[in-house]
């Protein structure tokens, strides 16, 4: 391995090294603040090492490849992990009964798995990244094992993720059996667009596996229960980092295998996109639990992303990149408000918890409303620009049905987001259900401020970011 390759691999080395260091540190002495500092520091160092890393595309062994595409998505993932780590600090501090330090080990490992996914150009690294990510997620979801709901959610996720991984692996094995290579690009070249029954089944099974992990319809039913049972930081992590990483992998896999131009897959994915958008938005209408609502809304957003994914090309990939960034910032923003409001006993995930929020915390209520409006795609927010790009990509590729479905279903989404905003600005009839957490940690406050700035920046002046993404995904090919 050359020095250049080690430099390219540095983010992963830092993350894994920090995870082991925290583990050894815990063997000596437990200290929550110190653990958080190491975790946040290593995530920041990993981002820095990405920024200072090689500027040309660097293959690192046949398994991984650092190029503009992976730098952009890794950066996104690491930044989101950093926000979750910062927000977790205050959250676990309030739950004195839970041992919190191991959470950060799992978080760092999950981030390492996600970064591996964005760099993967080989089925082996794809599988390894995915399993490192989901293995850590099992434990993160069931982290509060004294709560029954958390254990249930963990088991549910474990069973479904395990089953879908097996299907995914079988698909890979079928492709391998036909092509004799596990390298994505080489396998695609061997197939050369001509798929026989075996490889058709193989690719289809891989897509089913990915669809399960992204909670695309008809494989979306697990998401709401898992998010509800998981502690709020884990739910935030699963909704942002895990989905972002898997979507990045899907984009790279599709670019290598040219899935979008294959009629059967195109038709199936388009149908899945339409069902996903409507299922997510219609099911979200009935929810009065914010975590479940965000689960369904994240399902719907994955459906929106599929529109740009199916549009393919540089415009499609740019739209995917920008929309994922906007989605991650916004979803983190909503979860951040939920996390700082969560008390010592339970998470602030009920509609009642938000009634009269504007009275108690006017600023927090404004942030909450802004983030939800961005999820709904209203102007001046990142969500609006993102949706605009999705539509542009869809129209550019003449995907009229998908574009229509996107417009109609995101109109539906306005209703349920507005319900929570209305609650936040309603007059409380009774004193609030939760004693609002008054002592907001300084770091959490800073994190929320940064998220708001990013939201407005992407919403008002997206040109610079879009240019950067365009360059990144152009090298990605």
């Amino acid at each position, binding site marked *: 391995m050359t020095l250049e390759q080690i430099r390219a691999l540095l983010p992963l080395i830092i993350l894994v090294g920090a995870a082991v260091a925290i583990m*050894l540190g*815990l063997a000596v002495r437990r200290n929550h603040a110190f653990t958080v500092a190491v975790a946040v520091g290593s995530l920041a160092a990993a981002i820095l090492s990405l920024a200072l890393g090689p500027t040309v595309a660097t293959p690192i062994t046949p398994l991984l490849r650092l190029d503009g595409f992976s730098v952009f998505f890794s950066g996104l993932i690491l930044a989101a992990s950093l926000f979750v780590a910062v927000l977790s600090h205050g959250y676990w501090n309030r739950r004195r009964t839970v*041992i919190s330090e191991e959470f950060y*080990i*799992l978080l760092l490992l999950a981030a390492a798995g996600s970064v591996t996914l964005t760099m993967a150009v080989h089925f082996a690294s794809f599988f390894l990244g995915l399993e490192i990510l989901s293995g850590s997620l099992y434990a993160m979801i069931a982290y509060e094992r004294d709560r029954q709901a958390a254990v249930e959610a963990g088991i549910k996720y474990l069973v479904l993720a395990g089953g879908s991984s097996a299907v995914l692996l079988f698909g890979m094995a079928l492709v391998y059996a036909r092509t004799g290579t596990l390298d994505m690009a080489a396998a695609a070249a061997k197939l050369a667009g001509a798929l026989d029954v075996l490889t058709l089944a193989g690719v289809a099974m891989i897509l089913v596996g990915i669809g399960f992990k992204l909670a695309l319809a008809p494989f979306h039913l697990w998401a709401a229960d898992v998010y509800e049972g998981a502690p709020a930081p884990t739910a935030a992590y699963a909704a942002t980092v895990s989905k972002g990483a898997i979507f990045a992998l899907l984009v790279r896999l599709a670019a290598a295998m040219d899935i979008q131009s294959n009629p059967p897959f195109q038709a199936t994915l388009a149908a899945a996109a339409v069902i996903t958008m409507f299922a997510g938005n219609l099911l979200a209408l009935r929810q009065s639990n914010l975590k479940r609502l965000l689960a369904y809304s994240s399902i719907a957003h994955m459906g929106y992303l599929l529109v740009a994914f199916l549009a393919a090309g540089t415009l499609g990939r740019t739209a995917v990149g920008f929309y994922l960034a906007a989605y991650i910032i916004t979803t983190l923003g909503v979860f951040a408000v939920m996390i700082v409001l969560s008390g010592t006993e339970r998470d602030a995930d009920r509609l009642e918890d938000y009634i009269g929020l504007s009275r108690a915390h006017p600023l927090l209520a404004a942030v909450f409303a802004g983030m939800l409006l961005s999820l709904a795609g209203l102007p001046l927010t990142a969500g609006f620009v993102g949706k605009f790009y999705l539509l542009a990509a869809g129209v550019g590729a003449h995907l009229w049905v998908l574009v229509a479905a996107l417009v109609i279903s995101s109109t539906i989404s306005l209703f349920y987001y507005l319900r929570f905003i209305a609650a936040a600005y309603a007059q409380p009839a009774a004193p609030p259900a939760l004693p609002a957490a008054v002592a907001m940690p300084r770091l959490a406050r800073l994190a929320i401020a940064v998220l708001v700035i990013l939201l407005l920046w992407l919403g008002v002046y997206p040109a610079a970011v879009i240019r950067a993404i365009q360059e990144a995904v152009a090298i990605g090919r």
Partner: protein
Amino acid sequence: MPGLLADGVELWPLALYFVAVVVLAGGILGLSYVLGERHRERATGMPYESGMIPTGSARVRMPVEFYLVALFFVIFDLEAVFIFGWAISARQLGWAGYVEVVIFIAVLVSALVYLWRQGALDWGTARRAGADRDRSGRRHGDE
């Protein structure tokens, strides 16, 4: 179509072996069933035919340590697989492979240190008395 086994490897000894195993096991069971002596007294079905009458359920709840040891076994057992994988081609892999396997083992050792310090390797409750945080910290983490 090329198959699973390299050409020239005969499969029939394996098949013969398999048949022999089935015949032997079946023969022993069958013969003892046919030739064996059978009796049905009142106490035949009891665990101690000529001893005290057992009381209570046989389904004892195992201490959680047994499960814990089973989990550790599953994990550390597999890590040996990777080391074997390195060992059979150690010379080909050279120093680079050596450094990599040393890093791998170092990570394993730190995991072991962590488990040991958390009290996961202590058997029984006496040793862990007074270490409340350890008790709950023990089963978190990366098991």
